[in-house]
């Protein structure tokens, strides 16, 4: 088993959902924990085993109780670990943190999380390796990391321990002081924030908090029992205050007296140099937040660090200065500083030694530059100080990579847009001319066999240019002309051009540029000499013309003439070749023309074209479609034609027609969309469990020969019982019955449903595939039909089935609707002892005793290596036992309740048995359990717990009454 752990873990990590199809999360978790406790497993494997808990704790520990149990297990593994297994112990701490936080144990204040916190704090207090020695550095660091994560997820948890954290930080001289600093800064920030939220707190409270050394603060106040971590209404605890959406920072009125805080901050700042850049940046940001909340301390204490930060080559540190600037504006940065910072950003955006992502980030920072006195607050706006002259350093060139090029084009477009507004002529200045030149040089590259990436980049650049400068006709008109020329040379760019037209039409509706482009493309295609037309080109032309035909404003005469020429010209091999796809392309254009507002003027040529296709096209399918279009064109009025063909904008009643005419859709994509099964927004149907009146099993194997009433008396009968299983179909199924009904969603459209086909998908591999079930009809007014679901278990576990339905509504549309997941509970898998007809009670009992004996003696006749016995006890009064037996065990009784004793046998297909001997003594119930499949024990146990719990509650209710 252990040999394949690496493989199993990596399979889990690759796709947990797929992995859990073949097992359940609780089994997997149990296996993992079992292996972790195994002394023979190596540390390396154990570290690996922890990764599912580190990465997917919510999958494995979905509830507080499972999380708590798992955490206790992990803590005991941690306690038993050899002190030398450092990596394992570190991983255990991290896994514990993940499990406890993600299963909400910490927010529920469970005992395991309390113990864990104590453990962490105890480890963290060993500063300068006074006790454990330097070898334990990694462990101590990890303990601090875990504490920090706990504080981050439950802000304020350590807010009453600031003094301790401060002392630890000051004492530590090894590299670990970084971990203490991070922890301290976060706790400080959260504590100050919580103070700002308390009415009337001031300097005294702040001083108190800084010197506090009490316990942990669980949740948002000790009185509230356990705030769920998801119910934190106060998101500001997680988010950086200084840049909140309202820009409003809560403040703590302390007066001038906050010496303690000031000295604490200076000591943190002084040591910031000793931290790694990433930690330094995180610390500075925390301090910025603290200072923003305590106005009494002036932000000028950052001044000593500023030059060092402004000159840094690390993006995280420079970013921190920008955040400082956003928080403190002119109380920390003079106008000169601001100008310097902006110039610095422009310089960095094109620095030869920085990486592309860094440069892109700096460009983004220019677009969101925190100005001391911002004028507008729109999404992307240029800082006032960014002059065209300064921005010229960032003009796009063909030497840029495509992302940088687009970023620069965007930035410069904004710059020149402003400039253009100033020069009043609206024609743009030299800057705009440069951008357009750049666009044309990109176009030139695309013309010359550019790679796919360059083509895409060019169209993105064109779109960006049009977004900003569509109104400058000089350029937008020239661009559309150039695009037409480009298209003729590279017809396979058709999808890109259509995409560009679509997008500009969406975004720049009033400009009309897209229509102009389409018109120009139509002209280009129709006026090009036919002699040079290749079939490949024609295919793309048809795509473009179909798109052009969607525009009501564009006259379609030219298109029709072109098509007529192509189809009818004697030189054309098109008709003869009978290419189905090309034929469809032509029909696609025709179909749109049938909907065109100027159809009246197109009538004759279109009819000619369709007729020619009908008679001469070398493909029957195309001929048929053309004939249909011809008939529609010549017999229907324009309105009716539109009604028949139009897809969008019709009300539901019409859609039935659309679908029945789906075969006329000329293009493959429309063909499929016409045949599409529609999707309901919400589940419309549900399956409600239906208990048949007669509890008798209907699994009697009818193919089995009926046994004589008393065969071979004295024989154990167990062989005979076993013999039944030789038929593979014997007792292999469980049958569940449901009513199929509507859900609460009331939509008269779905009142009558026909041809319902229910489909079930397995979520694990414990069962054989379930075949679909057909239900003829379901009317809201009639009795719900019964659905019988037959399940064939491979493993007798509970399961969940994913159900969906396809059905037809009255108007002939097909719909697909998901159903709520179907849960098959563990007891639903039970069957009673299956014996041939007419067996006497005693004989059944003999079978029971026989199996019981085999299990208990451990003498395995068959494959009884999986056998196990167990005992379940609970307090239950005598009367309740009777009720319990009657309610839950009646079907499965082998011997009736007699003097508080009875025998119960559950058979679980395909081959498992669970035998119970129930014994009641006074107010207690003992259930002796024997099974030939030990893996079922946990389920049996929880089943028994459930039913006895139920009895308790009914007893309670009875008592109350």
């Amino acid at each position: 088993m252990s040999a394949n752990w690496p493989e199993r873990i990596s399979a889990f990590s690759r796709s947990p959902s797929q992995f859990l199809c073949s097992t359940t999360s609780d089994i997997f978790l149990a296996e993992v924990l079992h292996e972790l406790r195994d002394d023979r497993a190596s540390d390396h494997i154990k570290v690996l085993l922890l990764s599912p808990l580190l990465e997917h704790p919510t999958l494995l520990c979905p509830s507080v109780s499972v999380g708590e149990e798992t955490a206790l297990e992990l803590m005991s593994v941690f306690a038993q670990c050899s002190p030398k297994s450092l990596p394992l112990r570190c991983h255990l701490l991290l896994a514990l943190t993940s499990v406890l936080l993600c299963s909400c144990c910490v927010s529920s204040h469970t005992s395991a999380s309390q113990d864990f916190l104590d453990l962490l704090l105890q480890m963290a207090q060993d500063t300068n390796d006074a006790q454990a020695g330097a070898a334990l550095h990694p462990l101590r660091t990890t303990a601090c990391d875990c504490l920090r994560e706990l504080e981050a997820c439950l802000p304020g948890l350590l807010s009453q321990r600031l003094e301790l954290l401060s002392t630890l930080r000051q004492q530590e001289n090894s590299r670990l002081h970084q971990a203490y600093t991070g922890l301290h800064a976060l706790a400080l920030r959260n504590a100050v924030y919580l103070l700002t939220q308390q009415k009337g707190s001031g300097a005294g409270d702040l001083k108190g908090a800084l010197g506090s050394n009490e316990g942990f603060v669980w949740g948002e106040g000790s009185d509230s029992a356990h705030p769920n971590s998801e119910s934190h209404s106060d998101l500001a605890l997680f988010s950086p205050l200084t840049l909140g959406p309202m820009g409003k920072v809560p403040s703590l009125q302390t007066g001038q007296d906050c010496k303690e805080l000031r000295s604490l901050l200076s000591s943190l700042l002084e040591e910031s140099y000793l931290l790694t850049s990433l930690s330094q940046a995180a610390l500075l940001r925390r301090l910025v937040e603290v200072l923003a909340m305590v106005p009494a301390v002036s932000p000028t204490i950052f001044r000593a660090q500023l030059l060092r930060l402004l000159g840094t080559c690390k993006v995280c540190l420079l970013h921190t200065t920008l955040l400082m600037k956003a928080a403190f504006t002119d109380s920390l940065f003079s106008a000169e500083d601001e100008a310097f910072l902006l110039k610095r950003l422009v310089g960095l955006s094109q620095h030869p030694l920085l990486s592309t992502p860094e440069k892109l980030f700096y460009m983004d920072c220019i677009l969101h530059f925190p100005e001391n006195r911002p004028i507008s607050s729109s999404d992307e706006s240029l800082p006032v100080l960014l002059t065209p002259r300064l921005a010229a350093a960032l003009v796009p060139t063909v030497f840029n990579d495509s992302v940088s090029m687009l970023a620069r084009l965007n930035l410069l477009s904004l710059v020149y847009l402003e400039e253009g507004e100033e020069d009043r002529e609206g024609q743009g200045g030299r800057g705009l001319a440069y951008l357009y030149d750049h666009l044309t040089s990109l176009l030139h590259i695309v013309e010359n066999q550019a790679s796919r990436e360059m083509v895409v980049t060019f169209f993105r650049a064109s779109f960006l240019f049009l977004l900003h400068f569509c109104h400058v006709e000089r350029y937008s008109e020239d661009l559309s002309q150039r695009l037409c020329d480009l298209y003729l040379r590279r017809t396979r760019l058709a999808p890109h051009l259509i995409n560009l037209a679509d997008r500009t039409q969406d975004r720049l509706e009033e400009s009309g540029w897209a229509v102009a482009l389409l018109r120009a493309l139509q002209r280009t295609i129709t006026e090009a000499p036919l002699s040079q037309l290749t079939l490949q080109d024609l295919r793309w032309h048809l795509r473009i013309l179909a798109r052009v035909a969607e525009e009501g404003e564009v006259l379609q005469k030219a298109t029709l003439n072109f098509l007529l020429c192509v189809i009818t010209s004697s030189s054309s091999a098109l008709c003869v070749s009978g290419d189905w796809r090309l034929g469809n392309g032509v029909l696609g254009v025709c179909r749109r023309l049938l909907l065109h507002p100027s159809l009246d003027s197109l009538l004759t040529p279109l009819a000619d074209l369709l007729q020619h296709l009908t008679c001469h096209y070398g493909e029957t399918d195309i001929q048929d479609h053309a004939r249909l279009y011809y008939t529609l064109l010549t017999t229907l009025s324009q309105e009716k034609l539109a009604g028949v063909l139009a897809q969008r904008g019709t009300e539901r009643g019409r859609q039935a027609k659309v679908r029945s005419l789906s075969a006329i859709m000329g293009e493959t994509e429309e063909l499929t969309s016409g045949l599409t099964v529609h999707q309901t927004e919400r589940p419309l149907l549900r399956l409600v469990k239906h208990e048949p009146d007669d509890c008798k099993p209907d699994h009697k194997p009818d193919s089995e020969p009926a046994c004589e009433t008393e065969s071979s008396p004295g024989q154990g009968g167990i062989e005979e019982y076993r013999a039944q299983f030789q038929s593979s179909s014997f007792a292999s199924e469980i049958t569940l019955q449901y009513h199929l009904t509507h859900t609460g969603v009331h939509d008269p459209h779905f009142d009558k449903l026909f041809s319902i086909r229910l489909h079930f998908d397995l979520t694990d591999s414990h069962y054989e595939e379930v075949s679909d079930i057909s239900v003829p009809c379901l009317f809201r007014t009639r009795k719900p039909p019964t659905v019988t679901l037959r399940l064939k278990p491979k493993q007798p576990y509970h399961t969940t089935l994913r159900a969906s339905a396809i059905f037809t509504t009255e108007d002939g549309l097909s719909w697909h609707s998901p159903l709520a997941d179907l849960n098959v509970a563990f007891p639903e898998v039970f069957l009673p002892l299956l014996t041939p007809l007419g067996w006497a009670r005693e004989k059944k009992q003999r079978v029971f005793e026989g199996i019981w004996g085999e299990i208990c003696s451990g003498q395995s006749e068959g494959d009884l290596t999986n056998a196990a016995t167990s005992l379940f006890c609970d307090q239950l009064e005598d009367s309740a036992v009777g009720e319990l037996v009657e309610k839950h065990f009646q079907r499965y009784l082998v011997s009736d309740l007699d003097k508080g004793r009875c025998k119960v046998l559950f058979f679980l297909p395909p081959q498992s048995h669970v035998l119970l001997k129930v014994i009641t003594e006074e107010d207690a119930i003992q259930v002796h359990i024997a099974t030939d499949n030990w893996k079922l024990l946990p389920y049996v146990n929880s089943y028994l717990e459930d039913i006895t719990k139920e009895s308790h509650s009914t007893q309670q209710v009875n008592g109350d009454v």
Partner: protein
Amino acid sequence: MPQLRLWTLLQGFSRPTSLCTHLHQRAPVDQAHTDSVNLCPVKTLDKWRYPTVEQRAKCMAGSLYVSVPEDGTVLQLLLTEMGLSDSDKPYMALRDDCLHQQRSPALELHVEGPSSGRVLWPVLVISQGSLILACLAMVDAPADPRPPLASLFSVSQGLTLLAGLQAFLCGSGSKPDREGLTSRLAMMPSILLQICPLGTPLDIPQLGASSASAMPTPAGTQKQPAWKTGVHRGRAVVNVALTEMVRSMQYGNRNRQDLWDVYGTVTCKCEVEGVLPNVTVTLTLPPNGSPLMDVLVHPCVSSLDASILTAMSVEDCDSSAFSGPYKFPFSPPLEPFRLCSYTSQVPVPPILGTYQLKDDDNQLRITVSLKLHESVRNSFEYCEAHLPFFNRDQMGSVDVKVSSGQLEVSKEKNLLVWVLGQKFPKSREVSLEGSVSFSGEHPGPTDPLCTDLTAYIKLYFRVPDLTLSGCCVDQHSVQVYSSAKPRIVTSRELLSSEYFIWNSTGTAPVSSGHMML
């Protein structure tokens, strides 16, 4: 908290880094100049999820929360967004829509199709060679309206971490060596545990710290920097190396101004005893040298004078500006590091060239002349001029004479390599003349930019012990405050980088806006 929800490392694709890829590569035509479509399957080499961060992300985003799908889906979405999926299809709406504005360092992954609005953002990506490093930063602000990228602290943290990991995995060279990469990849899980526990980036992995000489710190009152794994024991040595790169675009055209500039880096390796030893390196310029601009310093530099930062390349230089000496006091880490970098504008390019092509009936007549400026030391480690030709058939006859050096012809690659060797002749001028016919049977390499007579020469050279800016580190100016007197080694060199001379009879692409505006 500035945190990451996910980080992932992929391998398998190579993609062009620039619109005109070859122009940026060290040896331009060595690589097959194709579309860089590499069809080997992309695989996830390493990845990590941070569930506790995920929980907070869920809290922050509320109803707009989008959970991270499983690895396979993430991979597919990422490749689509990067334009790398389905490379056999010329157009895919999902991938190539012009509405997708890829113009920031952060990508959006459309989890349930582009119209669903379910978006994972911001996904930060760095790719080098066939490696793609990506992480999803946590948005620690209300999700609606989407906060600007520049306001998210986790973004710069994520970028710093990715860049650090990239440097660690790929080393300093542009291409990762295979064996080193494999061994470093094996270390990734434990490294990530140290530098990014529970999704919080704390550090970047250190490269090449000599662990042999590093000793654990003695317990003392001085706090040890977190970026230093121990202290140095042994002989004190300080090594300061100054490398300058020169770029140039020469057009030989009166309407278009030639361009050149210089950027330099100072790399240090300091083996000095003490927990926090002080070292000062001073850069000096010659009396009328133009100031160093855009100075960037390593975070170990403890203080900076404001005047050092004032000069910037994006604005006109003030002749009265501060021009040194540039003092950099710092406490060195154990590993070699880049102390500072700068850019500079120098009055003349080291080599001035002209390049003329005449198309003569499928034959190109070539005239080249190169002149070494008199201020440049005539002592190269190597000097080569590469003349590639694109969009033509393979070379047939080559009839070219050079006044100095040798000519190597690579007919398959349509490349002439003019090896100039260690020295220019006394006159400091060399020339190349002749004609090349393109009568081969097979087409040569293609390039979308270099069509017709658009062609270039690219120069490769290295001059030891020289900087163009005149910047230097005097051995005596390196101050080390420690008990033992250290050995101090300084060096400098000049390297070419993107040094192009364009054919003056063809159209040449614009490389910078400054001259156009």
